[in-house]
């Protein structure tokens, strides 16, 4: 069922369409909300409010972005309002490459080569599990961009718009997040999978 069919059914009060959307998006919404408000219970409330807003606002969905992006936009706005009310502070966003290069711009310590070892599905699944474990430790802004771009697969321009950041800032945050994930994978490769 495509976005327009789902929205049409939702407008008609179809519970099956609602459940279908919930099954598809609730886990991702919850994870993103938690990264913004910093608390599971508050995140659950924010997501519940988001679903109500989606139902009430289904008539306003014009299809200019995907339904998924529209729902995530509602969530981010609500979660940010909640986070502001609770005055949650953002952790400092460190440069992922601090100390990696010498004064000439060459690698201070060359990357340990491990990419060629990663070619089997079991390792890929283990890596995915590791990513889920380390995601909450990333700075909030990096975590949000990585969740939307690489986990949920939303396009760069839509992510920049829904997080109200510039395209360039979105890319910097994403790159830092990917570099942190890469570092964790490298540590894992030096351990149990080496």
């Amino acid at each position, binding site marked *: 069922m495509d976005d327009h069919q789902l929205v049409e059914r939702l407008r008609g009060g179809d519970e099956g369409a609602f459940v279908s959307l*919930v099954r598809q998006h609730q886990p991702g919404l919850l994870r993103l909300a938690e990264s913004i408000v910093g608390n599971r219970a508050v995140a659950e409330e924010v997501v*519940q409010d988001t*679903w109500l807003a989606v139902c009430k606002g289904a008539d306003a969905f014009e299809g200019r972005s995907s339904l998924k992006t529209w729902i995530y936009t509602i969530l981010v706005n609500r979660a940010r309002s909640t986070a502001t009310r609770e005055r949650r502070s953002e952790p400092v966003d460190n440069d992922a490459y601090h100390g990696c290069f010498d004064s000439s711009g060459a*690698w201070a310590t060359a990357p340990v080569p491990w990419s060629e070892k990663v070619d089997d599905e079991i390792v890929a699944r283990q890596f995915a599990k590791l990513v889920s474990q380390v995601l909450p430790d990333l700075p909030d802004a990096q975590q949000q961009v990585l969740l939307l771009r690489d986990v949920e697969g939303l396009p760069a321009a839509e992510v920049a718009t829904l997080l109200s950041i510039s395209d360039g800032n979105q890319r*910097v945050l994403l790159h830092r997040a990917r570099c942190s994930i890469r570092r964790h994978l490298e540590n894992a490769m030096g351990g149990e999978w080496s």
Partner: protein
Amino acid sequence: MVVIWWKKRRGIVCEQAVRLMAGYLDGVLPEADRARLEAHLAECPHCSEHLAQLRIAISAAGHAQPDDLPEKAIDDLVAVFRRWQRE
């Protein structure tokens, strides 16, 4: 004239290459930067390895879906949906 030629031809160092990778992976680098990065990658095994590792990180994140939703959570939301419909 010579200076212009030199500027166009000079390569980049690893630190610059790594900072261009974000735009490269998104396919949004200007043509000149893309060419400079690819020329650097062709000669630098460290940066090539770093890029390969970033691609693995992206792929791993793409598989990092959240846990399945408990049925109870769905039931709770359906109850909210029904309350809203009765309003």
